[in-house]
């Protein structure tokens, strides 16, 4: 049981990274990116293929995936999002949903419907942490995720671009008035968010099994985390991630496997009904 608890916390870190990609796009650009899940899946599948082909360790690929997805993010912004970004939100919502379907179908076409796993020599190894056995790979990924999130925080709070992003998330009009080039900010935000999503996706792929529609689940889980932590609040994300990871792990001990994914949904609905602003959220960010 304690193994499950710890494992849950560890994967929560990766979940948190995933959710971060979602919330940055929403926070800065006010876009609800429904292609989030399929992008995660895509990252996983790409990682899988490169690993299988080149026989390299997936961890080494993480930076590469990051760069690849950064470029993808820029392209998606320039050609798909920019034309509609100031139109009614329903349009961008449906558009990102459509993009998600496109990605999902491409996954099906290229990789087929079979289940895929990324296996490494250390995939099933466990190590002892404080007297409890945990999955080795989760520890590594947790640390990497932690590092990446910390890096993002530094970027957001200490660099010029980061501060500009925060400014946009608080008041777009204000940002424009002071002369911020909103287009460039959006471009960067989308790029870096996609990069995070890609890296997180590659990470997750090392832990779970991949199948074409797994994307839907990630969208759900990331939303769940955002809502738990508070939409628009970047502080609540790590907490939300860990809570979800924990809840999932513990419930998997008691419930049959199939319910595992329903848990995220239940948590989401519960939070939305009881405390829509989440733990740290501020109402005005909705």
């Amino acid at each position, binding site marked *: 049981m304690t193994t499950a608890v710890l494992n849950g916390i560890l994967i929560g870190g990766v979940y948190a990274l995933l959710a971060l990609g979602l919330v940055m796009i929403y926070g800065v650009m006010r876009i*609800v990116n*429904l292609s989030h899940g399929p992008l995660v899946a895509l990252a996983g599948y790409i990682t899988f293929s490169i690993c299988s082909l080149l026989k390299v360790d997936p961890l080494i690929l993480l930076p590469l995936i990051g760069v690849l997805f950064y470029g993808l993010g820029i392209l998606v912004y320039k050609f*798909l999002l920019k*034309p*509609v970004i100031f*139109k*009614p*939100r*329903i*349009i*961008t*919502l*449906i*558009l990102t*949903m*459509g*993009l*998600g*379907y*496109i*990605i*999902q*179908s*491409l996954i*099906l*076409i290229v990789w087929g419907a079979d289940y895929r796993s990324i296996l490494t020599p250390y995939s099933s190894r466990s190590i002892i942490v404080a007297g409890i056995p945990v999955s080795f790979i989760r520890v590594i990924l947790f640390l990497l995720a932690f590092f990446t999130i910390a890096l993002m925080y530094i970027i957001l709070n200490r660099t010029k671009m980061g501060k500009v992003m925060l400014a946009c998330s608080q008041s777009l009009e204000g940002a424009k008035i002071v002369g911020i080039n909103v287009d460039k900010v959006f471009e960067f935000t989308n790029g870096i968010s996609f990069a995070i999503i890609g890296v997180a996706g590659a990470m997750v792929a090392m832990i779970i099994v991949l199948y074409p*529609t797994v994307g*839907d*689940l990630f*969208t*759900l889980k990331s*939303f769940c985390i955002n*809502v738990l932590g508070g939409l628009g609040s970047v502080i609540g994300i790590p907490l939300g991630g860990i809570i979800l990871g924990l809840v999932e792990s513990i419930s998997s001990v008691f419930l*049959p496997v*199939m*319910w595992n*994914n*329903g848990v*995220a*949904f*239940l948590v*989401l*609905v519960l939070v*939305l*009904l009881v405390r*829509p602003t989440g733990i740290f959220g501020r109402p005005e960010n*909705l």
Partner: protein
Amino acid sequence: MKIVNLNSKITKALLWLVLLILCLILLKSKEYILSIFISTLIYTGVAVAWDIMGLSGKISFGQAAFFGIGAYTSMILSANGVNLLLALIVGGLVAGFFAITVGIPFLRLRGPYFAIGTLGLANVVYILALVLKKWTRGAAGFALPKSVFINRSFSFYYILILTTVILVALIHYWMCYTKVGVALKAIHDDEDAALSVGVNTIFYELIAFGISALLTGILGAFYALYITYISPSNVFSSSISIGAVAMAVFGGVGTTIGPIIGGIFLSFLSEILRNYVSSNFSLLLYGIAIVGTMLFLPGGLISITFRRTSKRQNQEGANNDARV
């Protein structure tokens, strides 16, 4: 996305034209052609039913949940000897009832949360269908027992589905032009302003949600009795939800004719793709249709007919509103 005011004359003309064509199809009783159109009509019907909810501005991505509930209900009933028509209606009612029950908490969710919620809902119902093996026979699927199977012609099914879809379209059309339609448009435009003029938003949203689910349930029930074999992966398939959204959006959200045109168009294309390439390309098609429409023609195909009249509408008085 705004609800476009229908250009009554063109809309009515198109609706009659489509109806005519669909009736003429019946004369060409080649079974293969009929079967394609039956499929097309089923999914087009779901698209129109989806759009009923879309009128309120709340986008549902989980239409498959209602489709599947209708399918399983009617299958279970038929297996126990209930007649076809009754099974269809009860299938729809169960789906509608489910929607209203779930709707009461759900409809409090704003904007994208409702959409995500419906996505999750569809997933949960799918899981339930797999888990409740005693009722649904689980992943193996549920086939109509031979003892109750009545062999009916394709023409029979065609007429039945055509009638059903006409009914769905009539309900949609009626809703656009009556008090309910005004309420939904108001909610769509500005929920708070709607409340301030006396619209009981939850009530009207539940009506739209319930009717949308009921009609989708009937279509799912039809599917079950037509194909005589259902399984969670085909009646709760997300491609049903996706297809509905794609068809309505591509043809024109907020109109009756829009989802119909979009439905026929996309169903056709996806049928061709299914035969010549693979069914995965249908999903790709839907995705591209959605993205393309959003980028270039957010009002859908039907909005092409609006361009010319929009100037007049702003000045003189092409009267397209609820009959005032």
